[in-house]
C-alpha cells in the first residue's frame, strides 16, 4: 500500500490566488467579455438557409410594404403643408404619364413583395401550427414559395 501511494501519479499543486476588490474583479470581467468571440459572418453558412431563407425575406418584404404604407400616410398628412398632391386622382394621373418600363418595374416592386409576403405568411402560419417541419419539406416549400411568388408577382403585373 505504501508503495502504491508513493507512486501515485495524481498531480497536486497549490493554486495561486490574489486578493482584489469587487470593483476590480468586475472591470476584469467586463474587459474579458469584450474579448468574447463574435458570431461568424453570414458568408460561411449555406446560402439556401441564410440568403434565400423565407424567414428574413418575410421581414424584408413586410417592412418594405409597411414602410411604404407608413411613408405614404405621413406624406399624405404633410402634403397640404408642403404643397404636394397625393390625392388618388393626381396619383393615377402621375402614374399614367410614366413610360411603360417604369410602370412595369414599379408594379413588380409592389406586386412581388406582396405575393411573397402573402404566400410565405401562409407557410409561416402553418409552421406556427406545427406543420411542415420535416427537413425536406422546409427546403422544398422554401423554393416553391420563391417560384410561386415570382410567377404570381409577374401575373399581377401583366394580367391584372
Amino acid at each position: 500500500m505504501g508503495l502504491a501511494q508513493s507512486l501515485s501519479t495524481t498531480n497536486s499543486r497549490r493554486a495561486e490566488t490574489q486578493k482584489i476588490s469587487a470593483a476590480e474583479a468586475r472591470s476584469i470581467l467586463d474587459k474579458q467579455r469584450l474579448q468574447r468571440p463574435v458570431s461568424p459572418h453570414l458568408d460561411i453558412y449555406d446560402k439556401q438557409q441564410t440568403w434565400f431563407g423565407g424567414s428574413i425575406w418575410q421581414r424584408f418584404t413586410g417592412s418594405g410594404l409597411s414602410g411604404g404604407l407608413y411613408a405614404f400616410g405621413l406624406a399624405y398628412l404633410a402634403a397640404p403643408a408642403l404643397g404636394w398632391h397625393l390625392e388618388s386622382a393626381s396619383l393615377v394621373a402621375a402614374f399614367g404619364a410614366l413610360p411603360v418600363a417604369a410602370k412595369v418595374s414599379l408594379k413588380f416592386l409592389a406586386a412581388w413583395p406582396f405575393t411573397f409576403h402573402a404566400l410565405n405568411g401562409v407557410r409561416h402560419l402553418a409552421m406556427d401550427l406545427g406543420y411542415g417541419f420535416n427537413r425536406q419539406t422546409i427546403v422544398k416549400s422554401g423554393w416553391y414559395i420563391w417560384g410561386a411568388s415570382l410567377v404570381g408577382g409577374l401575373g399581377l403585373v401583366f394580367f391584372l
Partner: protein
Amino acid sequence: MASIARSSLLRQVASAPKVAVATKPASQNSIIANAARASAFHTTARRDLLPPLPQKVVGTVNDAAPVPTPSPSHGSYHWTFDRLVAASLIPITVVPFAAGSVHPVLDATLCATILIHSHTGFQNIIVDYVPTYRTPRARKAFIWGLNAATAVVGLALYQYETNDVGLTETIKRIWKA
C-alpha cells in the same frame, strides 16, 4: 494550457493525411479532412465585423437570468393575437380580388388590420435588433417613435378613407392607369 492543447491539435491535423493513407479506412478520411478545415477556420485572423457593444454584467455572474414579469399583453397572448391578425388578413385581402370591388367598411377594416399587423411587425423587428439590456435608451426611442408613427398613419388612413376613394380603389386605379 490552451496554447499547448492547440499546438497538439495542429500537429495531429498536420500529420493526418499520412496516417489516413496508411491505416485509416475511407470512412474516416472525411472526418480528418473536416478536422483540417475546422482547424483552419479557427486559426484564421480575427475580423471585427460586428464589434460588441460595451459590456456590463448586471449583479454578479452567479445571479440567475431575470424572469420578466408576466403580462397579459405580452408573451404568448401577444403571439396568438399576432397570428390571429395575420390569419384574418388572408380573407380580407382575397375578397376584393374575387369580388372586383370593395365596400368602404371592408376597405376600412383592411386598413385597420394592416395597420395593426404593421405595428406589431415593426415592434417585433425593434425587439429583435434593439435589445433593452444593451441599448435601453435607443429601444425606448424606437418604440415610442413607432407608436407615434402608427398613430399618425392611422389618422392619415382615416383621412384618406373618408376624403378619398379608399386604399383598394386607389391601388386598382393606379394599376389600370
